[in-house]
């Protein structure tokens, strides 16, 4: 792939103070053919700010949640024939410069999905609370057991995905509406896609409401375990033609 058509996808919920900076910093990179902000039913002027900064904006008519907003972006990318989707959170916690690394890693390491990890060696990040760290360790262990692969940061919103993956996420029933996590990583493995990580720098979200906050942790763990179970008893699927499986 010499120069893939890249869509940078930013799900955003009430990020009017940050979104313009995020869009501008991505535009400066020159890698994106188009920058798409999916405004997840914000009550502030996130959509206006994003549009003023030069992004294409799709405003969801009702709030769908993080995964629902992402999937809207996948549908857009799928419909417009993009080769690669690079997704980054709209709250400024990801260092946009890493988008170049993510997209490059797709080719250099021959991957279908590249995750930007805040825990890999070489990444610099903020401290994660102990309870959450414990939950992450559990899911990390489950991923290792089911896929034989070590993924240090399955919840990262900072990713690059190739078109075949985007197509399946866009149209399938399997993409979660709330928070993609270990279940999606295992799903990708079962479908024969290659997933890898690169270290990225992350900042603690500066605006008040990260989309990852406010979850009831116990319910979340229960939900995720069930979701992983669903994936594990679900069908294996061959990778679409043109992309090798594992």
């Amino acid at each position, binding site marked *: 792939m010499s120069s893939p058509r890249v869509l940078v996808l930013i799900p955003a919920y009430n990020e009017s103070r940050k979104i313009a900076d995020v869009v501008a910093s991505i535009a400066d990179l020159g890698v994106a053919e188009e920058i798409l902000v999916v405004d997840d039913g914000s009550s502030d002027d996130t959509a206006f700010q994003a549009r003023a900064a030069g992004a*294409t*904006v*799709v*405003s*969801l*008519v*009702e709030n*769908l949640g993080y995964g*629902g907003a992402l*999937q*809207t972006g996948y*549908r*857009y990318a799928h*419909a417009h024939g993009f080769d690669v989707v690079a997704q980054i959170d709209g709250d400024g916690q990801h260092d946009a410069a890493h988008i170049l690394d993510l997209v490059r890693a797709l080719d250099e390491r021959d991957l279908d999905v590249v995750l930007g990890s805040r825990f890999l060696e070489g990444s610099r990040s903020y401290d994660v609370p102990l309870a959450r760290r414990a939950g992450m360790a559990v899911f990390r262990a489950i991923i290792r057991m089911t896929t034989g692969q070590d993924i240090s940061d399955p919840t990262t919103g900072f990713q690059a995905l190739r078109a075949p993956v985007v197509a399946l996420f866009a149209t399938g*029933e399997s993409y979660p*509406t709330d928070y993609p996590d270990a279940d999606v990583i295992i799903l990708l493995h079962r479908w024969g896609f290659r997933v890898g990580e690169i270290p990225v720098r992350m900042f603690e979200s500066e605006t008040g409401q990260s989309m990852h906050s406010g979850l009831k942790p116990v319910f979340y763990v229960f939900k995720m375990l069930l979701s992983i179970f669903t994936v594990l008893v679900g069908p294996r699927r061959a990778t679409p033609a043109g992309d090798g499986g594992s």
Partner: protein
Amino acid sequence: MPGYTRMVIAAIGLLLFAFVLDRIRRRRMRIEYSVLWFVMALGALLLALLPDTFDALARALGIDYPPALYFLGAILFLFLILLHVSAELTRMRSQNKTLIQELSLLRARLDAAGIGTPARENDAGEADRTDLA
């Protein structure tokens, strides 16, 4: 079982039957959702008409106190109805998500093409289908 108890149970069954039938007639309940309610109404009628059969059935199942069987039956049916509702709700949420996504994408395309979209408030003027029934 005393006669007046049987009459009350029969009345409940008949009322449920009439109520569900009326909902269907007014297009307030889809026929496929009415089936379980009809079975419930039928169960009440059968219980009122043939209490001895139910008592015998309870004893055959090892239940010393026959009314416990009626409650068990009612609870199981409510269970089925709730499971059915959960399944329908899940299906509708999935459809709803797809609709929100596709509508929002379409709206963005219209805006980009400068066609513009009609005002969001469209609460007025929804036809009441009961008038056609």
